[in-house]
Structure formats: C-alpha cells, structure tokens
C-alpha cells in the first residue's frame, strides 16, 4: 500500500473557485476507484500518513484526498466559503468547537464514539484522537552545562540569570498568526498568572516569534534557538533526531491539546467519513491503540499536572472579537517591548 500519488499544490487548489489558501495536498490509494474521502487537516502529511495507510489497508477501494491548511484557512473554507469536505481534522480546538457550535458539523454515533471517554467527545460532533502536550523544547547540545528547567518558575529564573546568553535565542508562537499558539497562550493564562510573567521575560529577551511548531523545532535544531516554548511535544518526538532535544513537560501544569475530527455538515460521502472516524478512534483509544504521537511521550508521568483543554463552548470565549482584541493587545505590550 505504499503506492500513493503525492502531488504538491503550493498556491491554490484547482477546482476550488474561492480563495482559501492550502499549504499542501496529497492523494492516497487507487485513483479513480470510485469513492473518494476528502480530508482537510491542519496536520502535516507525514504526521497523519500512518493513519491513512492503515485505513487504506482495510479499505483498498478508497481514494483519499488529503489537503493541509492552517486552522484559520480551514475555518474560512468550511465556515465562510462552504467547501465540501468529508472530514475536518484540526488541532485548533477552539475553531473546531466554533464550527460544531455554529452548526457546521454533523452528529455521528457508533460503537467507537460511544466508548470514548467524556473528555474525548463533544455533542457527538467532535471526536478527539490525540493528546498532545505543549512542551518546552531545548537543544541539549547548545544548552551545555545549564540545568534543564522542570517548570515555568525554573525557566523564568534561568532566563533571568543568563539574559545575555538567551537574548534573541528564545522562541515561541506568534499568537497573532497561529491559532494553536493562541489556544495554548489563552489556556496558559487560565491556568496560571505565570504565563504573563514569562511573556514579559520573553519580551525583555527579544524572543523570536514563529508560525508553527515545526519551524521552532527546526530553529532549535540549527542552534538559532536555545529554547522553544509551547511547542507541540508530539512533533518533536516524532522526529528522527529527537535525541538532540530535551522535551520538557512542565511539572507545574502541562497544557494538552486534543486533535479532533469532525464530519462537516455538507460532507459528500458521510458514510465513508463515519468509517474513517471509527478507524481513527479505534486506533487512538483503548489498550491496543497505536496513537499517532510517539509512545515515549508518556503523559501519565505528569498526570497530576495535566491540563487537558476541555472541548466545549468555553473555548468560544477567546474567539470573541472583543476578548481576542483585548488579549492580543495585552500580549503585544508584553512581548514587543521595543
């Protein structure tokens, strides 16, 4: 089943008249074989590929069209422009919740959805299939003899003690650009005031801002950064060269994002969507699960500090335009001090 066609469409997808921006696109399975499952996702192809391969192994007559877009572009595609996809997979829990809340999702129930734990399902519309912690990723090589921080306090102290060493070499999400970064940041402020202090310190150290986790990890790898904060631990862990990094799950609290799947209201082949959701959930939950994130990233180590983001209308609060404007202006004044 390794025979899949991969094609990159870098700017606009042909056939989509309207203008949402896609980052990447790939086709899997036997092309022209009848049923097509159209997935729009925020996950990199490489990250999600194992799930597609295993699904195609069980359903060889299916073709999967996998489109990668940022969470905001995905929101635009489904919410505003009404493009038809069979499945929407996103790490932006708040936007997924808004889509479902605004009636852009179909309800789906099956044996697999009914056996989900409460935190992994919302309104029979959103189904969580990963638990991905926001981690502090540190370059082991560049850190030298400095002690590794175990929580945010230690990180703040470390940064304050060695300002010259870290100036310009810490990185985090640009929450104005990245939906996931915004989600992590807002959830951090809910959990503790420490976030604002940390952001102040980052601002003082002229922190670099990034759009995505993979860029940050890459920057740590090249030595451009010493520390990346609120990086998707799963991305770092899934890399071949993961031994170069220290992936720290803060012991004060570890924010955990749930990647969720949703069947859009206008899905052309909802039966196929249901089958894929079942497959996704069966492989992700339970004792025999083979989750997408690397098994070494053991969340049970920090069970007590686990701050699993709860799916629900609470997530709509920070999407409120007034609330968001206020949050971003506070964030900007903290991080952009020059």
């Amino acid at each position, binding site marked *: 089943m390794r025979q899949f066609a991969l094609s990159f469409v870098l700017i606009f997808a042909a056939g989509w008249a309207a203008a949402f921006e896609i980052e990447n696109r790939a086709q899997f399975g036997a092309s022209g074989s009848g049923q097509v499952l159209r997935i729009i996702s925020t996950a990199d192809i490489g990250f999600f590929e194992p799930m597609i391969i295993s699904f195609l192994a069980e359903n060889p007559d299916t073709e999967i069209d996998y489109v990668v877009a940022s969470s905001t572009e995905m929101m635009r595609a489904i919410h505003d422009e009404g493009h038809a996809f069979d499945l929407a997979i996103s790490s932006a829990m708040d936007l997924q919740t808004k889509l479902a*809340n*605004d*009636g852009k999702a179909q309800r789906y129930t099956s044996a697999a959805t009914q056996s989900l734990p409460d935190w992994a*399902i*919302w*309104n029979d519309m959103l189904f969580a299939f990963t638990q991905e912690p926001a981690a502090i990723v540190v370059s082991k090589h560049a850190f030298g003899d400095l002690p590794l921080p175990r929580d945010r306090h230690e990180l703040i102290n470390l940064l304050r003690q060695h300002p010259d060493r870290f100036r310009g070499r810490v990185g985090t999400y640009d929450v104005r650009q990245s939906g996931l970064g915004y989600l992590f940041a807002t959830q951090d402020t809910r959990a503790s005031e420490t976030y604002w202090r940390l952001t102040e310190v980052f601002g003082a150290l002229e922190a670099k801002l990034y759009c995505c986790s993979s860029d940050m990890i890459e920057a740590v790898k090249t030595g451009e950064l010493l520390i990346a904060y609120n990086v998707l631990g799963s991305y770092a862990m899934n890399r071949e060269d993961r031994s170069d990094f220290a992936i720290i799950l803060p012991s004060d609290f570890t924010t955990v994002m749930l990647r969720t799947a949703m069947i859009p209201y206008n899905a052309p082949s909802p039966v196929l969507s249901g089958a894929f959701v079942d497959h996704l959930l069966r492989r992700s939950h339970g004792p025999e699960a083979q989750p997408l994130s690397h098994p070494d990233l053991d969340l049970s180590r920090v069970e007590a500090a686990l701050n699993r983001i709860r799916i629900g*209308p609470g997530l709509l*609060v920070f999407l409120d335009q007034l*609330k968001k404007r*206020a949050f971003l202006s506070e964030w900007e004044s903290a991080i952009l001090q020059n």
Partner: protein
Amino acid sequence: MSKPTAHGSIRRRLLLSLLASAAVLALVVYFVVQSVARQVAQESQDNVLAASALSILDSARFFDGEISVDLPYSALSMLDSISDERVFYAIRLENEFLTGYVELPEANGLSGSVPAFRSAVFLGEEVRVASVRRRVSTDIGQSFLQVSVAQTLSGQKQELASISRRSMAIGAGFFLVSVLLAALIAQSTIRPLDRLTASVSRRGPKDLRPVAAPVPSEMVPLVASLNSFMRRLQLSLMRSEDFIAEAAHRVRTPLAIVRTKAEIVQRNADNPETHAALREMIHAIDDSSRTAGQLLDHAMVTFRLDHLSQDKISLRRLTRDAVDHLHPISELKDIEMEAVGTDDLIIQGDQILMQNALHNLLDNALKYTPSGARIVVTLLRHDDGAEIRITDTGPGFPDGEMDHLTDRFARGANAENVVGSGLGLTIVKEVVEAHGGQMHITNNAGGGACVSLHFPSS
C-alpha cells in the same frame, strides 16, 4: 327453593369504580408530576442562562470612549458543564451589535434588570434565549447594554425524557397500589354482608330468632326488615301450631264421649246391621282420636324441640319402660315383645321426647305386626355411639316407599286397615335428629321391619 336472580355485583361495581378513579388519579399524577418537573427544568435552565448573561453583563466596562467586554470563561463553559450543549451569545449596545452571534434573537419584554426568556430556533436547532440589560453612560448619553445568551436543549430534553419515564413509573406504581387497596376495600366492604349471609344460612331449620349481631348502619334497615319478617313468620307458625293443638284437644274430648255413647248403643243393639255400622263408627272415631292425639304429640314435640332439655337418659331403662308400658296391648294381640342387651348406655337429651319417640315406634310395630309375631328392642354399643334397634317379624315396610315414610301424613301402602295418622315416624325422626342422631329404616333379610336409631356418644 328457587335461586334468586343475580343482577350485577356490589363488589365488582365497587372495584370497578375504585379502579376507574385510581386510573384517573394515576393519569393526573403523571401529568402533574411531568408538568411540574418540566417547569422546574425550564426554570433551572433559565436560571443558569440568566446567570451566564449577567456575568457577561458585569464584565462590561466603559473605558476611554469604548465599551470593552471581558467575556468571562465560565460564562459560556458553565452552560456546557452537565451535558454537551451548543451555546450562542450576542452583546449589543442599544441596537448596535458589538460581538457574538449577530443573528441571535433577543427575548422580548425586557424591563429593568429582570431577565427575559424566549424559545427560538437558531442555526437549525431549538434554543432557549435569556436576555438581560443594563444602563450604561456613554459619550452620547445613557444607553442600554444588552446581553443575550442561548443554549440548545439536548440536556433539558434528556432530563425531561427521564422525568417522563419516572413520572410514568410513579403513575403506574400509584395505580398498582390503588388496585391492591381497591381489592382490599371491596373485600372489607362486602364482609358484613358475607357475615350476615353466613350467620343466616348457618341456622337450623326452626331457628327464627332475630339477627342480633351488630351490622353496619347501611344494613340496619335490611336486617330490621329481615328480623320483622322472621318475627311474623314465627308468630304465624306458632299460631298455626297452637291452633292445631287447640283443635285436636277440643276434638278429642267430644270424640271420647261420642265413642262411649256409641259403645253403649252397640251393646244394646240387636240388629246385626246396626251393630256392624256402629263398629265401623267406633273404628273411625278411634282413628280420628288417634290422629288428634298424634297432632298433640307433634305439637308438643315441636315445642320441646325448640327448648330441648338436657337430661341424662339411661337407654336401658328407657327401652325396658317402653316395653313394659305397652305390654298390655302386646298381650292383647298375642305378640311377644322384649328388650334385650344388658349393657347400659347413657345419652344426654330430653327424656319425655325420647319416651314419646320410642312409644311411637313400638306402637307402630304393634299395629302393623300380625298376632303371634315377635318384636325385639335391642340396645347396641358402637365405637361412635349407641343404637336402639327395633325389629319385628311382620310384613316389613313396602319396597320403594321407605324414603317417604317419614314425611308428614305419609302412610305405607299396606296401612289401609290400620288406625294411624302418618305422623308417628315423622315425630321419631325429628326427635332423633334433634339429638344429633340418625334414623334408618330397612327391612330384615328374613322378613320384617327394622328401624335403627343411632345416637352419637355425647
């Protein structure tokens, strides 16, 4: 006696009306519980919505010429805390939309700071909307800040479904308990009637005493008329018995006189035809006289049966006396009569009645037995009591009539030439049964009649 026609049943009617009212009440309980629960569920949802809307309203600040609303996280997350709900909100300053869902309808009738509510359909689903407002001062003067929060009803629907199931169970349980109670009530209501029926049907055939046991007030008229009916019946029975006894008594004395005169005339009559006529006349007078005597006897027996005395009766002595008493007549007819059985037996009973019964039996035997025959009175002891057996060597009872011989005024087919009233065996039977015994009439295998009286051991 003809069986009375039954028309309906009080118990069934009572049961049915109780069940019908229980069913109605169970339905009422079901609907009341459901409507109260629905109201409570609606109110609690409204309260949560209003709390959410108010907390948003409280977070609004007017600062630097601009309204800022710091939407509290809990304002929306609390609406989803029990069941997964879709949640919508809208914030407006007068009619200017600030944030949220622009198309969310507002609840009408807002006045002051009291929340208003409405149900609506929004984005394809039923929602409940709560709206609150507050007066704020802006650059251009006073205006109203309005917040509406809406929530889907899936949790409320689930709750209502479960309440509906529960109130159905409550109604059904209520009905079941009512069925049990109705059965018990019907049973206990009918019980005095059953008791009265039992006490009346348990009575002996001659017991016409009034019903004295207490009865419910509704049954007092019935029992009063029953008692009065029985009193009249008893009175009329007594009157007729008295009348018969009186009549018999009055007839007997003149008959004796007539008989004496007839004998005198017969003795002096020379003409054989007259003689024969007078003999027939005397025979007829004897017959009438005997009947009158037995009617008197019967009246006496009937009276004594109602007031049975409890003497100790030696059966040996009784049989010996009876045989001795009738000895003159048996000798006259050349009939051998004896009492056998040496063992004495004692029973409780009325001495005079027992004597009378035995006399009647022996008298009968003497009448129907030809000269030269033999009558034996045997006293026998059994495990369960005593037996007096009277056997003779006469013609015996006619076949096929034995069942009817004890009826009043019934006489056997062989009795044409014998003086008799047909009351003798009736009297015997009544006496024996009043003593708890039984009379059996049979014929001996070798010819002759056999009457046995069984008395239980007292």
